[in-house]
Every structure is written in structure tokens, then in C-alpha cells.
């Protein structure tokens, strides 16, 4: 099997126990004040799009998860890592 290029999108977000003042400010000081009081919560995060060579979609996902853990791309004390999507690039 030949290597193919995949695009993996991940987001890093503060754990629920760690306050997120960016999200709080967007909700309380912007949305709620401008009439969007139906919004009950906003959490901000960091977004990374990673292009990676792998044999399969699963391998691409596994490698990204491994490197994020090994190199502390997310801080395990305060953040959670979410893989949003993995797709083959054209």
C-alpha cells in the first residue's frame, strides 16, 4: 500500500473545570448584550489542521493522537484533545 496524504483537524479545549474567559466574554459581554440571550454557553479553543502522510485514515488518526500526547501538543492538566475530522486530500 502506498502512502497517501490525509488532512486531520483537531481542536484543543480547556477542560470543564478550567475556566475559559474567552468563551465567557463572547457569551456575556457580546452575545447576551446584543440580544442573543438564548446562547447559554460558549467555549473557545485552538484549532490545528495537520497534513500527514499515512497508509490509511486510521493510521493518520493514530499518528496525530500519538504525537499530540508525546509532545504535549495539548496540556493534559488543563485541556482535552478532540479529533474533528480525518479526510484524504486531493
Amino acid at each position: 500500500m502506498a502512502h497517501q496524504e490525509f488532512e486531520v483537524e483537531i481542536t484543543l479545549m480547556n477542560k470543564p473545570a478550567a475556566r475559559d474567559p474567552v468563551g465567557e466574554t463572547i457569551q456575556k459581554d457580546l452575545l447576551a448584550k446584543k440580544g442573543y440571550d438564548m446562547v447559554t454557553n460558549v467555549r473557545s479553543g485552538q484549532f490545528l489542521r495537520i497534513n500527514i502522510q499515512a497508509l490509511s485514515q486510521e493510521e493518520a488518526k493514530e499518528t496525530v493522537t500519538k504525537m499530540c500526547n508525546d509532545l504535549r501538543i495539548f496540556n493534559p492538566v488543563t485541556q482535552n484533545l478532540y479529533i474533528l475530522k480525518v479526510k484524504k486530500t486531493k
Partner: protein
Amino acid sequence: MKRLNMSIRIAVIMFPGANCDLDTIHVLNNVMNIQTDLVWHNYFKESEYDGVILPGGFAFGDYLRAGIIAAHSPALDQARMMLKDNKPVIGICNGFQVLTEANLLPGALLQNNSLKFICKWVNLRVENNKTACTNMMKRGEVIDIPIAHGEGRYFADNLKELEENNQIVFKYSTENGELTENANPNGSLENIAGVCNLEQNCIGLMPHPERASEAILSPKGTIHGQLFFKSIIEFIKRRLS
């Protein structure tokens, strides 16, 4: 092996983006009279030094998260070796962030609750005076010192453990040593401003002792930052004697 006071050698690590390195060098060399070298992070050799300070600034532009890129520098491997020899490893401000990201200190530093960069003088209460940078202070003593950071909100998920192990070194307080919400500039957990490892030879703090070591720099004329550096020197002397 006994050595003269003047033969103590300390390194201040220079990361790309550090900006408090020269202030720290100035205080150690010219105020405390300790031979101190500025060392580029890739070239640092722990065997040549009795202690190391990771200074404040914005190492690697704070990209991804404050301290995370620098935490992978070879200087941190050297710092780990120093700790095994009981040589002090101290992180000031950005240096504290680097030490938490390198897993040498517990917890993490998050963005200030106010979302603002805060630069002002605060009061710290000494919680543990047995560490490599507080042994010349009294427990409960309140010191004047400035902070200057955007990401200084201390967070840890094992607070009880830190308390039981005496790992909390400094807390933000009022002038009288009260731990009020108003005295907490950034929303830190339990007003925590500085912590140490179990061995108490690795310490990180957000405030800047190098900016509080000369009377001309302090609004009250205090030089409490000197106690911090005197403690490091004392710790090194005890280790060498």
C-alpha cells in the same frame, strides 16, 4: 568540597523571545555579586553551573501555548540532570510556564481571567520557606514584587496533594497577608503565585524578583527580590559545603 562564595556560577538561559534575561543577569552579577552567564538554550551544559534560571519573556513567541516549545529544548534535559544533583532550577514568569510544560513542576498557567496582560506591583505571602529560593524568608512574610503576564492563572487538578506536600511556595495576598479575592490579580487557584517540586529544588513563580531587587525600581523602596536570590545562593552554598 568547599568553594568560595565568588566561585558559584549560575546560568540564565536565553530562549529566542526571552526578554528578562539581561535584567536577571544584571541583578545576579552586579547586585548579588554572583558570577552569572547568559547561555543560549542549545548550548547549556549543566556540569559548568551550580544553578540555572529560566527567565521571563515570550520564549518562541508563546506559540501554541506559553512555554511549550521551550519545554522541548535540550536545556530542559540539562535542567533535569541538575535536579538529580540537587542543583536549583528556577523559573521566573515565562520560565515558570516552561517548567510546568516540561512537567518539572505541577499544574499549568492559563490566560488571566481578565483576558488582559497585567503589569503591576503585588504582595506575596511566603507559604513555604524551606525551598531553594525562600530559605532566607520567613513563613507568612509578605513581600513586594511586580507581576507582568498575560497567562498567569495557576491551575492544578491535584490541589490537595500540593498542599499536603508543601509544594505551594507563594500566594498573592494583601499587604497584611490576607488571601482575598481582590489580592488575586489573575484568578489563580487558591491565590497561588509559585510552586515547587517535591524535592523543593525546582521552583517556579509568576512575579519578577529581578525587578524588585533595587530600591530605585520599587515604589516603596523595598528590595525584597534580593531575598529570593540570597536564598538561591544560600542553597547552593549549603550544597557545596
